[in-house]
């Protein structure tokens, strides 16, 4: 097992995460440590309820560890305030959710503009141009002014990818991005991911889809709250699959 020797974008040190359920405490992550370097495409796999999404939430600062340290893009996210995390996420992390999570009130174009608005990145004109360009890139140029409810799940997920790229973040996190899509659409979405990584982004994706996972250069498997496998297949994602 080997990893590229670039500076780590994500560094997780001995992270433990426990939840209180009634009078019991359940530990989801049991001392997890690993690093992800810039430009890597990592797939996190494992059965449901074993801590994959929890680990992802730790990386994005959505959840906090019970103990341990999480350094992402050089920031100790386990120590940051909610507002600092929000601002940091807007700049450094693009998140793609399983259920797309588009704001229903906004068109696809506006959904893509939104992170730029919130982060005050680019001029208003540049925001529109960039959002239109990103939607073009994901093949939705002609659907830009439709509301999320008017397009298919696959199209929503493509728009969500465009949104995740809006502020040009170095790290993209995707939580079961193809979980709600059919096989063909899943492959289309995955192709977009490889395209994104080929542009130098770092990508971490949680997936159940074994076939997709096999196409990712590095696979991290979590079982019962521990990393049981961290395998670098060897071919960089941007080399083509």
């Amino acid at each position, binding site marked *: 097992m080997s990893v590229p020797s670039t500076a780590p974008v994500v560094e997780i040190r001995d992270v433990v995460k426990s939840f209180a359920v009634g009078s019991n405490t359940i530990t989801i992550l049991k001392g997890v440590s690993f690093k992800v370097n810039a430009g890597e495409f990592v797939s996190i796999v494992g059965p449901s309820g074993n801590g994959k999404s929890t680990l992802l939430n730790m990386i*994005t600062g*959505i959840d906090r560890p019970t103990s341990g340290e999480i350094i992402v893009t050089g920031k100790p996210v386990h120590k940051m305030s909610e507002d600092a995390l929000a*601002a940091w*996420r807007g700049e450094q992390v693009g*998140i793609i959710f399983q259920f797309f999570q588009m704001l229903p*009130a*906004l068109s696809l174009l*506006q959904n893509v503009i*939104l992170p730029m608005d*919130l982060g005050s990145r680019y001029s208003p004109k540049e925001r529109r141009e960039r959002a239109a360009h990103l939607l073009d890139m994901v093949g939705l140029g002609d659907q830009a002014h439709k509301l999320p409810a008017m397009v298919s799940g696959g199209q929503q997920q493509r728009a969500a990818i465009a949104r995740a790229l809006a502020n040009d973040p170095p790290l993209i996190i995707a939580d079961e991005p193809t979980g709600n899509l059919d096989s063909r659409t899943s492959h289309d979405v995955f192709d977009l991911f490889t395209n994104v990584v080929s542009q130098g982004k770092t990508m971490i994706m949680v997936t159940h889809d074994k076939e997709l996972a096999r196409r990712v250069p590095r696979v991290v498997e979590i079982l019962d709250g521990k990393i049981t496998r961290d395998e670098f297949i060897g071919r960089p994602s941007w080399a083509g699959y």
Partner: protein
Amino acid sequence: MSVIWTKVWFDLWHGKARTALVVLSIAAGVFAIGAMFGMADQLLSTMDAAHQAVVPAHIKIALDTFIDRDAARVVAHIPGVENAQPYNQTAVRYKLRPEDPWRQGIVLVLDDYDDQTYEMIQLKEGRWPLRGDIGIERLAAQALQVGIGDSIIFKIGNTERALPIAGKIRHPFVPPPAFLDLLFFFMDTEGGERLDLPNGRFNALLIRVTPYSEDYAKEVAARIKDHFAKQEIGVVSTQYQDPAKHWGRMFMEAFTVVLQVLAVVSLFMSVILVYNTLSALITQQTNQIGILKAIGGNTLAIARIYLSTVFIYGILALALAAPLGALLAFGITQSFLNLFNIDYDAFRVSETALGLQVFAALAVPLVAAALPVFQGARITVRQAIASYGLGGDFGSSRLDRWVERLGARLLPAHYATALGNLFRRKGRLALTLLVLITAGTMFLMVQSLSSSIDATLASIFAQHRYDIVSDLGGQYRVDRVSEIATQVDGVEKIELRFSHAATLLVGGARTKEAGIGSSVMGIPAGSDFFQPFLVTGRWLQPGDARAAVITKDVAKKSKVKVGDAITLDLNELGETEWQVVGIYDPVFAGGFNPDVIYVPQEALFEATNKYFRGATLYVRTRPHDDASVSAINTQLKELLEARGVRVVISQTEGETKKTNAFQFGIIVSFLLALAVIVALVGGIALMGALSISVVERTKEIGVLRAVGARSRTILGMFVLEGVLQGVLSWLIAVPLSLLVAQPMASVLGNVMFNADLTFQYNWSAVGVWLVTILIISTLASALPARGATMISVRDSLAYA
């Protein structure tokens, strides 16, 4: 423009019903603020300005003897007197048509209407009266529905004479005809002569002092009274006026303050809906907040989105309420000012009220929304995603379990859900109930205030064992008046009491000379006509010599208690010593009601050396119904006038009751209107809460639909939930009103009417409110309930 605004717009437009409810609710409170504060601002300031514009006299003195212009000039030279304007005033009897009964009025005579110094009367239409015609006070013209060219029949001596109206005149100090049936007319000096008002001689003076102060005016008045006493001229009455403040202020000031307080209460009730709605909106959009945070939105950015929504609610409410509030404020102000004979025709918007409305519409809802908005905006992404799915906390508390058991025992399963749903969002339930309970308590309080006023008036009138009171305008012999009055069929018994203007002296100082002034009244020994409500001591008894019963206000102001000696200055009749044996509560004091000091009539005769005379006639009739008493009153007045006894004013108990009912009716109506506004806000709040409930429970409705629930079951569930809230609010409002109605009636009675009311809780209002709240809650829940029945299984389960 930021795309965030698209979301704000979407929330407003997509939730049109919610937007309309919140806007209407804020608008109701803002409207009440605008109407009440606008009215108070315009009313009191315009009253004062109109008052100052007519150069009101500081002192008005009525004399029992005519004086000439030279004597008036002498008064003007008394130290402290700025000037004195003489005039004549006398009681007259008039009617419109020959077949009408005679009515009482006042004729005022100035020798030169173009040369007035004080209390400027103004010609509004036509010309000043000349020999052979009259001027009519414009309120009188309005009440009688007559105009220039019409004629009024006057009783002049023993003849009737129709005099044409030459002009409509405004007199700044006439009582509103709705308050007192005593209309004013104007004549020139020749016209006055026909009414026994000698040309060039006067029976009243308008006086100003310099420099003005209330105390100095009283001091100067004392000098003037002494001056007249030395010439054996009697001062019948002395009135004082604040030159800066309109006399009607005492009626309106406390009343407007109470209305303003209630308007603020209405506003707070209406912003509760803002709190409720924003709480629900935030809960409903927790997921969206999570997304916004996940893509870089911080707390402030998210709070700004929702506060912008609230700000727009406020702008819409202001646009709706500001013009309506200003219109109503102007309308109420105009009608009140017209009641006080003040013109108010140019539409004006109170800047103060508008400023308050802007604050109430824009700032207050933002403050109300701040808590739920910041709580929601502070939520973490994980909490936002994990907590999505609503009402999952129901069943965790003891109350929830008790409610669940109660519902299971009393109701079919699907309706038991309604009971459970009621307690699902306890915070929202509490706030909605707060509005409904406030409305109910206000309604019951106002109704109890109204019934307390009725009860107080009833107990006062029950103490009156007479049916007619007549002011004879001078002292007449008791046997003469008695002989005339008992000739009228239906008169059972009469009492002629000696009354005279008096000044109470304690330690040599004049302690009571405010308002219309105090007067002393002689009560014949063994009189069973009337007994006031005694606070301490006792009522006058046969055999009492120099005993006096005074009002509690006089006792308090002059620090006199039962057993103390007081001196009464009866002006030209001299000073006399009395001992206080009782202190009474006049109940409705202030305003036109003077503080009357009751003493035994015999002792008063002795003290004044005026034996067997009286000026105030009390009559007990055999039939007591209004129509019979009114007929007897007319006959009595006619007979007395025919026999040379002047009747200035004569009022039956029925007429007095009507006047009281009118005065208090206006106030109670206003209070009731505000209670209705709060009740409407309560209905809107309930509708809003149930609409939100429907949205929150879309999935649950879908599940119920999927397992076979029909539309009427869904409809019934939501209507039942609304009605249960209404009934629950009623169950709390009734005991609450029982607790607070009495102290509130006492405070309101004292503040607004200067009266200690006999409290009477209005039990029939409890039933009326139950019916009202059932109607409100059924109507308020019908729309959201209907909305719930429109939800399909497919839609509801797709909802996320």
